Structure formats: C-alpha cells, structure tokens
C-alpha cells in the first residue's frame, strides 16, 4: 500500500465526521480522538515490531509480551476497581495463560519460536483473556448482588466463603466463556476473522490462512478456559471481608 493511498484512508473518517455533524450526534471529538489514537498507536507498534523482528532477541519479545499483559490487566481490572489487589491477580492469570498456551504450541511445534509468531499469537491469546476476565468481573459483581440471599444463607449455615460462593462462581465463569465459544460456532459463516483476512490480503492462500485461524481459535478456547478458571480461583475471596462476610458495594 502506497503512502498516498494510506492518506486517502482518512477520507473514511471524514465521512464519519460529516455524518456526525449532519445528524448532530455530537461524536466529533470521539471520532477525532479515536482516529488519532488508533493511527499513532498502530504506527508506533509497527515500528517497534519491526525493530524487534530485526533484532531477533527474546529479551525484547519478553518485554513486549509483558507490556501487553500489563495493559490488558489494567484494562480488565478497571471493572473491579472496588476489589483490592484484583490487578495483580489478573496479571498473574494472564501471564500464566500466555505461557501455558503459547508454550505448549511451541513445545509441540505448532508455531516456530520467532518474534514474528510469538508476539501476534500472544497478543491474540491475551486479548481473549482480557475479554473473558472483564466479563467475569462484571458478572461476579452482578451475581454476588442477585445471589446475596443465597450466599448469606449458606454462610449462616457455617459454609466457608468458597462453599458459599461456589454456585455464583460457576455461573460467572460460564457466562464469561460463552462469547468465546459462541464466536467459534459462527466463525467463517458470519464473520471472517481479522487474522485470516489479513493473511489473505497479504497474499497467503486461503487454505493456509484458514489453518492458522483454526489454530488460533482452538488456542482461544483454552486461553478462555484457563484465564477464567484461574482468575475465579485467585479472586473469589475479594468479594468477602476478612471475616468472610459478603462485602456491601460501599465497603
């Protein structure tokens, strides 16, 4: 793609801006900020990736993955701002999910351990985990409120916090994983995933592109399961006080 045609792409933003102004949607600021951030972030990451690929150093790969895990953890933890220490728990579960999934793919020779594979695959795995974790936290916040009576009835019968929240936890974990598996069911029929589309546009054969897509989708399923189960085990106590009382929202 030439530089000039790249600039033409911004015409799409002008269309969005025009529609926003015409229909008085008041989205102008959002559109401009979104455009600038998207362009700057992607360009910057493009140069950083190029540098890392050329350097062929695992140190840089590791640093890059750590950066992705940190940003994803920060993003997911915002939904549980009232939960002290949730960030570190998410960080740990994302880190372990990435190591477990990417590690086993490398171990069985599904991907070659070069920055070109490690970084995009880690990004996709961490991205999936981020969505799953965010959903889990919102779901738990909602569920602990709706099931407060049930949880407290169990506590009053002398249940441990783990026993009391078991049912709620199971429902939240399940709900957080559903979108990942729903996507798996309709993929290719409803949407053509970005990675596959990208490979096809870049000149790869559709069959090659599809094979990689299948690999990533299968990886997503285990990433979703590992991160959801891990974060649930690491975090359920945060909804309780030290006295194993269910926290009120305000507390």
């Amino acid at each position, binding site marked *: 793609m030439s530089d000039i045609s790249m600039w033409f792409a911004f015409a799409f933003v002008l269309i969005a801006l025009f529609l926003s102004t015409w229909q008085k949607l008041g989205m102008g600021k959002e559109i401009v900020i979104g455009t600038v951030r998207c362009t700057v972030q992607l360009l910057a990451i493009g140069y950083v990736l190029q540098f890392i690929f050329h350097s062929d150093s695992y140190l840089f790969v590791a640093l890059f993955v750590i950066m992705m895990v940190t940003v994803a953890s920060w993003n997911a933890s915002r939904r549980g701002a009232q939960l002290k220490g949730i960030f570190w728990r998410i960080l740990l579960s994302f880190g372990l999910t990435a190591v477990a999934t990417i590690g086993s793919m490398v171990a069985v020779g599904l991907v070659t351990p070069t920055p070109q594979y490690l970084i995009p695959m880690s990004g996709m795995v961490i991205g999936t985990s981020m969505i799953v974790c965010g959903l889990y936290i919102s779901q738990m916040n909602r569920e602990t409120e709706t099931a407060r009576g049930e949880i407290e009835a169990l506590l*009053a019968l002398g249940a441990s916090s783990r026993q009391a929240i078991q049912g709620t936890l199971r429902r939240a974990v399940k709900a957080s994983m559903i979108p990942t598996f729903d996507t798996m069911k309709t993929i290719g029929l409803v949407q053509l995933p970005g990675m596959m589309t990208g490979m096809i546009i870049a000149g790869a054969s559709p069959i090659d592109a599809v094979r990689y897509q299948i690999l990533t989708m299968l990886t997503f399923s285990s990433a979703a399961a590992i991160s959801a189960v891990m974060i649930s085990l690491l975090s359920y106590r945060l909804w309780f006080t030290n006295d194993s009382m269910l926290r009120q929202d305000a507390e």
Partner: protein
Amino acid sequence: MTSTLLLEGLGKQIQPPDGPWLFRDLQATITEPTIISILGKSGQGKSTLLRILGRLTLPSCGIMVLDNKDCSQWTPEAWRMTVSYVAQQPMMLPGSVTENLQAASNLHQRIFDVKQARQWMEQIGLDHLDWEKPAQQLSGGEKQRLALIRTLLLRPAILLLDEVTSSLDAVSKQATEGLLRDLHGRMGTTILWVTHDQEEARTTSQRVWFMANGQLLEDTDSQTFFDSPESDEAKMFLSTHPVVAEAAERVR
C-alpha cells in the same frame, strides 16, 4: 449445649465516620439457655443486631465474646455454626426440599439425621410436603418453616430468628412456637427472637430486649416488661398495641 454470650459496647453506625448511629453502647450477657424477644419499633436496628450477632454484618464497635472466647478467636464458620441466623426472607438453596434439608450435613460432611428432620417437619405442619419438590416452588410460609428446620439441623447453641413466623397462619405459627419452646426445653437452645408480634413475645419468651433511641433501653424478664415497663418509650410502645395491652390486662 449451653453457650454464654457477652456483648460489650456493641454499636452500628450508618455510613461511618460521620453518619448517625443505628444503636450504640449495647451491653448484654446471656449465661444460661433463654428465650429472648427483641422488641422495638421498626428501624431500631433489631435485624442488624441479629446479623451482627450471626457475623453476617460487621459492627462499627464493640466486643462479642462467645463461651469465654473473643469473636476474633473463633473462625467465622465455627461461630456461625454455634450462633446461627435465620433470615426474615427465607432463601431457598437451589434444588429440592431434601437438598435444602441436607444443606448443613453436606457442608460439614455430617450424616443427615433424616429421622429428626422428618419429626421436626411433622411437628411444624410440613408432613404433607413432597421432599422431591423444588424448594423454590414452596409457598412463603412453607419456605419460612423449611429454612428454620434447615438451620435447626445444624444444632446451633444459639438461634437468631428474624421474624421467622411473619408469613405463617395462626396454626402454623403456634406449631412453630411450640417447636422452638420444645427445643429450648429439651436441648437448652438459647433463642434470640426479633418479632413484631407482642403476643408471641409475651407467651414465648422469658426475657425481653427492648430497643429504642439507638439503645438497648430495657433488658428484663418478659413479665416485668409487659406488666410494668420502666421507660416511657416502652410504655408508649406497648400502648400502641391495644390487643396485647388488653391481653396483659386479662392476665393481671
């Protein structure tokens, strides 16, 4: 089965640090099996007090000592198995009547005393109930009684009951009161009972805690309370319930 409970300077503040106090400086001692009715107008913190005693709500200040051990020395689980709270809104656990009855034994890996469960169900007027029925489908009154028996099967030394007869008809209510009196008599269970039914308080309890003005205003035996209450608040409280006042008059 006899447990002693000591409460010292117990208080609950709404929205600390500057909010008003629901109640404060609450002192009380229970040294022998007793049935205590907790009376007072709505909003005096009676239910909150029960929840604090059942360690489901944190007090803002004060000390609770159970069997000569401060509450911090008890695990919350062990405390709640000894001092057990039954909520006003009966919350059924997912599953059948059986699963609800077995909840305590399943949680603590004990053998389910089916004979005892059946006997109590019968005594409380639930002998007709199909145990395989989903508990959610029971009526309000059935749920309330099932929740009570579910807790009784835990065999706590102190029972905290929050208006547990509020959805019951007169017959079931009498049966439930009978069961609780029986339990107290045979097993020495101490019962702390929040109720708005003064007749129930008068006939069932030996002692009354009367809460008003953010305090435990009176802690006395129930006959004294109903015959000659000390505080103006208690006199006013009793006089607003003419049925009971008349009943008391008849007794006199």
